[in-house]
């Protein structure tokens, strides 16, 4: 009998440290499945960022380099320029990519670096205990926006995917969620597509994944899952924002 479902070869068989109801584990699995699908595990190099995602090297069965906070996309660009035949990806949270590392992220996309960025957007600083992120929604209470995010003080949540999609260097930009089976399947497809773009040397690929953070949102797993649907997706709409065709690349 054929095995219908198994752990991806690319994912090490140990329990995740993530909180109950956190979506990071699902996103990790989708990345691992994409790497398995293209059989590129032995030529993939991952770049870990700072935040809950830093322990990527404990989970992915690939070579992994740890980048300083916010610098993962610059580090990944350096890896790729030195080894163009390798597949290079980063996995960065919203603080890492949209706050401290926004310059590196934008310029990496603008140079059209042939790497893949997985952007984990849960609208909060998870690792440090629930502070406001650049993607925290207006009115959302966090440990550093105790009265709710107010645009007169804190500005507006940044839509990274839309911003990066405007750059000529971007080949593939998508936003996905993993809060229900339908969205999960689309996320799987988008992440796979992002790696495919890199394999085909089409240029910079970027997938923003909306994730629930029940612990720091002060919610149960189910409530947090509902919040992704009811509050996050309306502000951060899902879909493919840019997809370069071979024709316009040439």
């Amino acid at each position, binding site marked *: 009998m054929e095995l219908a479902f198994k752990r991806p070869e690319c994912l090490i068989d140990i329990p995740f440290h993530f909180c109950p109801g956190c979506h990071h584990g699902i996103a990790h699995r989708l990345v691992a499945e994409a790497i398995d699908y293209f059989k590129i595990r032995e030529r993939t190099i991952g770049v870990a960022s700072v935040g809950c995602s830093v322990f990527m090297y404990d989970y992915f*069965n690939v*070579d992994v380099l*740890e980048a300083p906070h916010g*610098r993962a996309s*610059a580090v990944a660009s*350096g*890896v790729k*320029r*030195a080894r163009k035949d390798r597949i290079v990806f980063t996995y960065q949270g919203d603080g890492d990519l949209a706050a401290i590392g926004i310059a590196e992220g934008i310029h990496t996309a603008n140079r059209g670096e042939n790497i893949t960025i997985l952007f984990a957007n849960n609208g909060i600083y998870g690792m440090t205990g629930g502070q406001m992120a650049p993607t925290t929604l207006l009115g959302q209470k966090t440990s550093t926006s105790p009265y709710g995010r107010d645009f007169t003080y804190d500005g507006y949540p940044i839509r990274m995917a839309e911003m990066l999609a405007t750059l000529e260097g971007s080949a593939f930009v998508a936003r996905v969620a993993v809060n229900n089976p339908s969205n999960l399947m689309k996320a799987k497809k988008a992440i796979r597509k992002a790696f495919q773009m890199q394999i085909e040397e089409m240029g910079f690929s970027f997938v923003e994944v909306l994730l629930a953070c029940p612990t720091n949102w002060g919610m149960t797993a189910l409530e947090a899952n509902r919040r992704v649907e009811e509050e996050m997706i309306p502000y951060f709409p899902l879909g493919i924002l840019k997809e370069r065709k071979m024709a316009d690349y040439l």
Partner: protein
Amino acid sequence: MDQNSEKLLAKGNEALAMAAIDSGCLLYFGYPITPQNDIPEYLSKHLPALGGEFIQAESEIASINLLLGASATGARAMTSSSSPGISLMQEGISYMAGSELPGLIVNVSRSGPGLGGISPSQGDYFQATRGGGHGDYRMIVLAPSSVQEMYDLTCLAFNLSDKYRNPAMILADALIGQMKEPLIRRKCGKMDLPPKDWALTGAQGRKPNRLKSLYLQDGELSEHNWKLHQKYEQMKKEEVRCESFLTDDARLIVSAFGSMARVSKTSVELAREEGLKVGLLRPITLFPFPEKALYELAQRVKLFLTVELNTGQMVEDVKLSTDRDAQVYFYGRPPGSLPSPEEVLEEIKKVYGIEHSA
């Protein structure tokens, strides 16, 4: 001169760029800043034809992290900048030291603090020799004093950096970087280096490699810091380089590095012409510092004069090295005015005279 050598008239910055290529470094990342722009300009012209990569990054922060990534694959790579840019790189340098990554960082330093100016300065001595960023680490720091040394020490820096899996720095200034002198471009010397089995190349037929500086398990970080410390101790034993000039019979030792050593050497020659027994001890490696050479000199020479283009930094290391066995005087020039050999000679005479009147 053998077939592999070529005699040229070159700027210090160009000599350094040539040495990078001759060392097999085909990856350069940097952001424009005076007075080191000849380095990226030279490499942006020559690297593509050699199959290399040149990126003008959006900042020095990106530059050092591009270097971190490239070095992690085992390739030779470099960045260059000047003082304010080097300040921005400190985070990345700390990560490179913590993750035990080689790589060359060039500081053709300028004057500070803040935006300061572009004139020659040695105000970055502390930053270069004390690590510079957060945490307990050191860089290998080489201080060229001529165009030829810009070439030779760059070759050496790549080798030492690989040997110790530790970032290395060339600390120069506008005087050494912008000056034109004859250069013999000979093939960079090879060194027996350990294989880079730690490099990230894709986990083909082996377990995945990890390059990181985060250590959270009980005792892990302490052990890691001791391991780094052992490397620095080994550098102190094996890699110290300095130039002794007319020190054998000297009653006064001038100590200076880089551009200031260049000026001071002439001052020592002038002093000798006047019959004063003066010598020069020039540290070539600022880390590891020539502690032993200075200590040994201090057992028979009682007067030291440290000359720097700052208000007193290396003089602390000279004092520590001579360990109160000698009197250490200091002559400093903050940025903006380079002393002439005659001006340094006047200072030499003052200190030399102190001994006579004692």
